[in-house]
């Protein structure tokens, strides 16, 4: 260990913020960046110079920090996912800032796909009697669908509610009811004021009745380090590394990143879908020889015998392989402006494997506020729709259910003609 390694002992936490401009989402992000000293002097100056201001007054408009593009500043809206960085002495944070408008479900799905945690913002002044807005339901439903591990409900603008505990409790019980309906196992909820910084970095004097840590402390303590390590091994082969040509001592290794599980030298692996087996002869983790690798590591594996392995194959332990097949049921979130056409073929990319797929049936569309299936699909899915489909792939996939193992249960569909990313898919 050297000094460089000791900076952020708790690694990286990726989070998504869901909410609209009105909920104070940009203000909250600006507050996190500012109070964690992530906002630098010249960015603040540029904001003071900015031509388009959303609010009048002398205070800093934190939301201007997070609106990147000129087009957006002119229209006063956010049109795309933006990524923000800040860190505390304990942890590095990556925020995916997704806009909250109805038509941008695809942006939230995009941001949520890589997130460990979701911050769901609720405007206390609009939910004081426990009436949750449709967008709160929608954001929570997507967080649930994408399997985000930690849900943090930030009840904002509590200053405008005179910090009434009753209002907070109303919202807490309403959210508890929503979480139960959606199947969200647990959530954190806290009262705050992003504008004034209450319960963001330091505990607020206004909420003696709230005894949990403020937002930043909570985000620092959410566990992520063991993500995927205790799951079965999945090592998708990205690249076959050959060196030395036909020489007898030529090097042949299989490179990829462990999607889940652990891997040790000497273990027997099964190549999926072919089923052949071999032992791990050597292991290189990020350029160094090692005896063991864990989920997330970029590795090169050498095997003790010649077996046929190519890009797209999956290495697993024989005792806990992925299922293999060509027929799957999946949830699709349609992202493209041209709707799903069951008569067409799409490219499917699952891990490093790219093959063709056809949608055999569209069973149901989901109501995005409740996740309930709605019968009747008109035989298609259009942009921002989420639906359950059956599909058939040309090549065999070695895959898991998304619920069990997201890293080996996710895929995308690509339009063969336009090359647009058409859908995000989760295997059932």
């Amino acid at each position, binding site marked *: 260990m050297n000094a460089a*390694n000791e900076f952020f002992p708790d690694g990286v936490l990726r989070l998504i913020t869901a909410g609209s401009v009105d909920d104070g989402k940009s203000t909250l992000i600006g507050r996190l960046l500012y109070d964690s000293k992530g906002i630098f002097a*010249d960015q603040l100056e540029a904001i003071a110079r900015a031509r388009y201001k959303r609010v009048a007054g002398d205070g800093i408009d934190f939301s201007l920090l997070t609106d990147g593009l000129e*087009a957006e500043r002119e229209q006063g809206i956010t049109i795309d996912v933006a990524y923000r960085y800040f860190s505390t002495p304990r942890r*590095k944070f990556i925020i995916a800032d997704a806009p909250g408008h109805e038509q941008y479900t695809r942006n939230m799905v995009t941001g949520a796909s890589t997130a460990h945690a979701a911050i769901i913002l609720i405007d206390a002044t609009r939910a004081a009697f426990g009436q949750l807005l449709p967008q709160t339901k929608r954001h929570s439903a997507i967080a649930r669908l994408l399997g985000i591990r930690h849900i943090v409900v930030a009840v904002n603008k509590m200053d405008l509610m005179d910090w009434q505990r009753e209002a907070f409790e109303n919202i807490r019980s309403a959210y508890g009811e929503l979480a139960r309906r959606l199947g969200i196992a647990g959530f954190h909820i806290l009262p705050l004021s992003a504008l004034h910084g209450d319960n963001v970095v330091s505990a607020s004097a206004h909420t003696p009745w709230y005894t949990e840590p403020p937002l930043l402390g909570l985000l620092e303590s959410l566990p992520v*380090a063991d993500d995927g390590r205790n799951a079965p091994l999945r090592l998708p082969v990205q690249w076959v590394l050959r060196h030395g040509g036909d020489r007898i001592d030529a*090097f042949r290794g299989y490179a990829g990143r462990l999607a889940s599980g652990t891997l040790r030298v000497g273990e027997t692996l099964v190549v999926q879908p072919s089923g052949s087996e071999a032992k791990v002869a050597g292991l290189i983790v990020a350029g160094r020889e090692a005896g063991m690798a864990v989920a997330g590591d970029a590795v090169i594996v050498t095997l003790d015998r010649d077996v046929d392995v190519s890009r797209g194959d999956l290495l697993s332990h024989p005792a806990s392989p992925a299922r293999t097949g060509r027929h799957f049921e999946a949830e699709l979130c349609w992202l493209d402006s041209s709707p799903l056409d069951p008569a067409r073929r799409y490219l499917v990319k699952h891990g490093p494997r790219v093959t063709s797929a056809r949608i055999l049936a569209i069973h149901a569309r989901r109501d995005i506020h409740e996740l309930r299936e709605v019968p009747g699909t008109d035989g298609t899915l259009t942009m921002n729709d989420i639906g359950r489909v059956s599909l058939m792939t040309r090549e065999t996939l070695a895959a898991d259910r998304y619920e069990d193992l997201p*890293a080996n249960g996710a895929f995308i569909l690509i339009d063969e003609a336009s090359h647009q*990313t058409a859908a995000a898919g989760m295997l059932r």
Partner: protein
Amino acid sequence: MSVTCRRSHLDWLESEAIFILREVAAECARPALLFSGGKDSVVLLRLSEKAFRPGGFPYPLLHIDTGHNFDEVIAFRDARAAELGERLIVRRVEDSIRRGSVVLRHENDSRNAAQSVTLLEAIEEFGFDACIGGARRDEEKARAKERIFSFRDAFGQWDPKAQRPELWDIYNTRVHPGENMRVFPISNWTELDVWQYILREQLALPSIYYSHPREVVRRRGLLVPVTPLTPPRRSETVERLPVRFRTVGDISCTCPVASGAADAAAVIAETAVTEITERGATRMDDQTSEASMERRKREGYF
């Protein structure tokens, strides 16, 4: 889990970047890695070693030389490529000027924007379908919305409203002939991360990244280096100060900061407490207009 399996934020960032480099190698027909000799591209070279050694790199290195580079950086660039035994392609803005595809109003104008033209010419000449670059999202506001695989149309243009959604770590690398991808494996790194990685990996950098005495003038809050391209103005006083560069772009628009930091550890100590972001302190061209990076990116800039 045993202590040996602890992974730091640098391990996480490194592993993500290696994964991205291998995706480019596997899915793109003719990729290239943009190597300028600057610190971010030095990091890309180390990541490439970790991704592909003992094999060779599955892409050549490409430098778009504005002709206004610091000598130390060019010498470093050539030495590093030779040491790695990898192929280095250099294409010069000077040649684009000679061909007439780049027209500058004044001979000493910044050639930073002109690089886009020469880059697009090189992409066409070699048929590159992917260019790997060391840009980071924390550098500038327009970069914050940049994808890791950033699609460019047949004119090399970036359309911020028509970017492909990027889900999980499943990258859509498909392009039609003539279109290309810009790929940013260290998108998620900050300046501090880069310096911590340089320290951990003991990466050599051009000497001007560390404190050295240099003649400068103070202009609009910046320290402007005195060079034949950037002479002092009549009213300005030339000072000799200990400075270092945080970025090493085109001489005509790159400024150093006052610093006594002589090694990576000292730079990290400064970076951790710094109050000025990298580009704001050192790049004259980005201050011109609030949206200037967004405009240049649309025009094909990296």
